[in-house]
């Protein structure tokens, strides 16, 4: 990685002389000195947007054979993404998984600052983000993904494929990146963050709660429940107020992290816990909520006391939980 302000000569040319100036200069250099043209294109600091703008002239040029692997892969990926040809991307994976992943990451990270260049470029950036998280499970790009969503939203541009991708990661801890936007000074950031977090209970009172408290409560809810949230599959394509995550009460009650909607396998539970969860699942939703909340609080405070409590009859557990939490079922 170079210095943050370091910029390649071709990017500098593009910024100073525009797209036509860039293309014209590269065309001349490609004819007179293809090796030098390739050297400039192979600069580690080159931004993806510059390569994208030169795509047509590079494919047919003498320079192409001098391009490095990053640039050749990027030019190939542009063609596949434009055709929406995922099967050909899949064909590359057995032999070139690492190369494809790192190229997509370069396209996204270096392309981010030029988001908005044109519709097709933006769509390619979306595709890079989608593949990075859905195929390569590369969570290192999630912060950038959230930046893209909120920056585009400020400009009233299209964001819903990126939002879909964000939730398809199925990692509730990433919600904290959205929660941060509740503290933004930009009203569009706050409005979008509230929409994306609308399934968090405190959001029902968003109109009457100050933003700082809203922020604190959301952080606290996510930290308390992240391990126990199950992805529902609901998206913004389907509903105006989707509930992408539900708290798995049985998971929270037993203090066992929920793995992607998998039901507890009874043989993975100890005898007492298997019996407890059977009885627990027959309770109504309110009782499940109160018990799971109390279980979580008690576990965090005193694990020895929790082990005793969880072994006690369910009626007894409910009595204690209701009394201690001040919520009767």
């Amino acid at each position, binding site marked *: 990685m170079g210095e943050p302000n370091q910029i390649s000569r071709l990017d500098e040319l593009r910024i100073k002389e525009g797209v036509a100036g860039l293309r014209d200069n590269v065309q001349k250099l490609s004819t007179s000195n293809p090796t030098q043209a390739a050297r400039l294109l192979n600069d580690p600091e080159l931004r993806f947007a510059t390569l994208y703008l030169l795509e047509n002239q590079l494919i047919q040029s003498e320079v192409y054979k001098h391009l490095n692997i990053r640039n050749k892969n990027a030019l190939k990926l542009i063609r596949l993404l434009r055709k929406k040809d995922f099967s050909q991307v899949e064909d590359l994976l057995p032999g070139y998984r690492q190369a494809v992943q790192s190229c997509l990451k370069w396209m996204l990270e270096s392309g981010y600052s030029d988001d908005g260049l044109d519709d097709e470029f933006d769509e390619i950036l979306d*595709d890079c983000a*989608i593949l990075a998280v859905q195929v390569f499970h590369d969570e290192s790009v999630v912060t950038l993904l959230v930046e893209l969503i909120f920056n585009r939203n400020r400009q009233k541009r299209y964001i819903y494929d990126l939002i879909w991708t964000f939730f398809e990661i199925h990692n509730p801890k990433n919600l904290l990146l959205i929660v941060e936007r509740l503290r933004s000074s930009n009203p569009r950031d706050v409005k979008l963050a509230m929409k994306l977090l609308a399934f968090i209970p405190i959001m029902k009172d968003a109109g009457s709660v100050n933003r700082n408290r809203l922020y604190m409560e959301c952080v606290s809810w996510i930290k308390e429940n992240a391990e126990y949230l199950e992805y529902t599959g609901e998206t*913004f394509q389907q*509903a105006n107020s989707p509930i992408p995550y539900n708290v798995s009460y049985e998971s929270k009650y037993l203090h066992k992290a929920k793995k992607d909607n998998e039901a507890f396998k009874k043989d993975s539970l100890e005898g007492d816990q298997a019996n407890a969860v059977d009885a627990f699942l027959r309770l109504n939703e309110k009782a499940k909520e109160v018990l799971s909340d109390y279980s979580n609080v008690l576990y965090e405070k005193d694990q020895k006391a929790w082990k005793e409590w969880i072994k006690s009859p369910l009626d007894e557990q409910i009595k204690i939980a209701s009394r201690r939490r001040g919520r009767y079922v």
Partner: protein
Amino acid sequence: MIYIGGKQAGKEAVLGKLPDDRIQNITAEIMADSTQTYSFRSMDELKFELSVRSAIVKASKDLNGNNFSFAVFRRSRCNPAFWNREPDGGFRLKSGVKPNEAIKNIYDQSRLYATECSTAIVIVFYKALADVLPGPLFDALFPNTYLMNWQSLDPDLGLRTLHEPEKYMPGNCRYFKNPDVNPLTPEWQGENAIDFGDGLYYGHGMGIRNAEQIIHALNQNRKRNADKSAYLMDSSTRLNFSRLYTAYARYQP
């Protein structure tokens, strides 16, 4: 069970007061046969909901039968005489244009329009209301119509998603989810579809098909080695008929 003005109404008595309209009759039968209570302030309110539900099914069939195309939001298009196309691909009502005329234009000049399935369903809901409500009332209720997806709706539509509804009704929107979709075609991540109440659904880009056919079409657009089939989710999205009826009943020309 149907309750009208606080009293239970018998199925035959209700059906006897309805017009000869298959969708209205199917819906009333579902309500009457259900163990869930459907309460209405008056027979007129029940008739209003039934007529809107029937109009939703008709608006779906009409949209399916014309030249309204499918396009992803980035390539959506609309008639610029009635709508401004926004940077996110949505259609915003032009200043000085009457909302009910703009909605009806989508049907009259459908070849000028193309968008995704969620917007199509929103258009169907608006068209049904434009057909049932008097023009001036529709225009007063929806003066700033913005057609995009579920995120930009007029609050007066009161669309609400029920996560585990007891009964599915004609005129509600269901969702077919495609969890293993080809990631480069997110437009196939699922299909919003209007429930006709007889096993058929209208989904924009799909046409009028049964659930199995819609699931089959979605499954054709999955990634390689996908192991999860598309499926019909339990949730169901409906208009707030009660709120709309209140506006309708209060309306004086």
